[in-house]
């Protein structure tokens, strides 16, 4: 029985196997393989395109951001003090309100008409000596050499004819002046000195009385020398008291 069944099974298996189309299966496998390869290559191509696109976008964004960063210092340079000094002078002549003044002056402004453009001229100026200080007896010392450049700049920018001083005080200009402005002095009239809110702390001050009603106050804040002028009616003592209070 077993031999007969074995023979029957072999016969059935062979007939069944002959019915299988192995050639068609082979072709179907190769077609599916090529299709899979095409799909893979197209996917890889799309991925590479996407990667290139991302890189290009990234580089573009980087370049754009660098342009923006590069443009910011340029705009800052446009507002540099060297250019503002001339603007302040012109505005002062017109009587307009001067903006917050820079702390340093360009070389062109530092040179005065009489040729006092060096440090020697600055140290020889009478208002910078301790003996010129008048008032309550407090002594304010100032090392002229330490602030030579600033003194020179202040002198050139501030010295003015007392006759040009107006009689109407301008609080805003005074406040700006105390905050570090120097060119605004040309339009300030005098009896009005008051600190502006948020004014810088004063470490040293020097008051120079010219005797012609013009009082110059020099104070140092953050190693910058500032000049202030007042008209008749305001004593050096008052100025020193004010500076002491500020300091």
């Amino acid at each position, binding site marked *: 029985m077993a031999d007969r069944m074995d023979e029957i*099974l072999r016969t059935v298996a062979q007939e069944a196997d002959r019915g299988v189309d192995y050639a068609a*299966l082979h072709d179907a*496998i190769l077609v599916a393989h090529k299709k899979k390869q095409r799909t893979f290559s197209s996917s890889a191509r799309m991925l590479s395109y996407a990667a290139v696109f991302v890189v290009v976008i990234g580089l573009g964004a980087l370049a754009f951001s660098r342009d923006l960063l590069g443009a910011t210092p340029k705009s800052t340079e446009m507002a540099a003090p060297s250019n503002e000094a001339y603007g302040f002078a012109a505005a002062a002549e017109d009587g307009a309100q001067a903006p917050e003044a820079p702390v340093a002056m360009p070389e062109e402004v530092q040179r005065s008409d009489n040729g006092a453009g060096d440090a020697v001229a600055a140290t020889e100026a009478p208002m910078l000596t301790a003996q010129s200080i008048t008032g309550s007896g407090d002594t304010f010392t100032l090392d002229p050499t330490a602030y030579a450049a600033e003194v020179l700049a202040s002198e050139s920018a501030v010295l003015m004819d007392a006759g040009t001083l107006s009689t109407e005080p301008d609080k805003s200009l005074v406040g700006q002046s105390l905050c570090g402005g120097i060119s605004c002095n040309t339009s300030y009239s005098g009896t009005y000195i008051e600190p502006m809110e948020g004014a810088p702390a004063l470490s040293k001050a020097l008051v120079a009385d010219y005797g012609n009603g013009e009082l110059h106050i020099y104070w140092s804040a953050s190693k910058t020398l500032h000049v202030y002028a007042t008209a008749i009616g305001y004593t050096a003592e008052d100025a020193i008291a004010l500076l002491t209070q500020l300091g």
Partner: protein
Amino acid sequence: MPARDFESIYADCSRLVYWTAYGVLKSQADAMDVSQNVFLRVLKHIRKLEEMNDAQLRGWLYRVTVNVCLDLKRKQRREVITDEGFEALPISEGDLPEAAALSAEQKRILHDAIETLPDIYRETVVLHYFSGLSYDEIAAYTGVSEGTVKSRMSRAKDKLFSLLKDGEKNG
């Protein structure tokens, strides 16, 4: 080591792959699909397979085929569950028009009887007669001893003989 490429692998092992798949799935169409997937994997791993000997290659193909079949069966089980709502009417085998014709042919009855065998018997019969594997190869691939394979084969023949006799009586 013999030089081997896809064509030689296909010529030597296509019968093994197809009938192994058929033994698991009991469907010619599914066996064809599984065979295609298995040989696509052969193409994918052709470099690794080229270095194998015949026994390793056939063992690898058998395992991959069975795994692909099991994946397909799991997928079909899910699909059947999904389609249950569309096939609410029960259909008995006696209602099928082919039932009368099947009873007329002895070989056909035997072929159908093979499909009704329990999995372990059907697997043994198909691997030996249809895939052409020896008992020791079947033992190696299925993870049982050669004696177990012979025992399963003997019981499968007894079962098929009784089924064949019943079919002849019914026919």
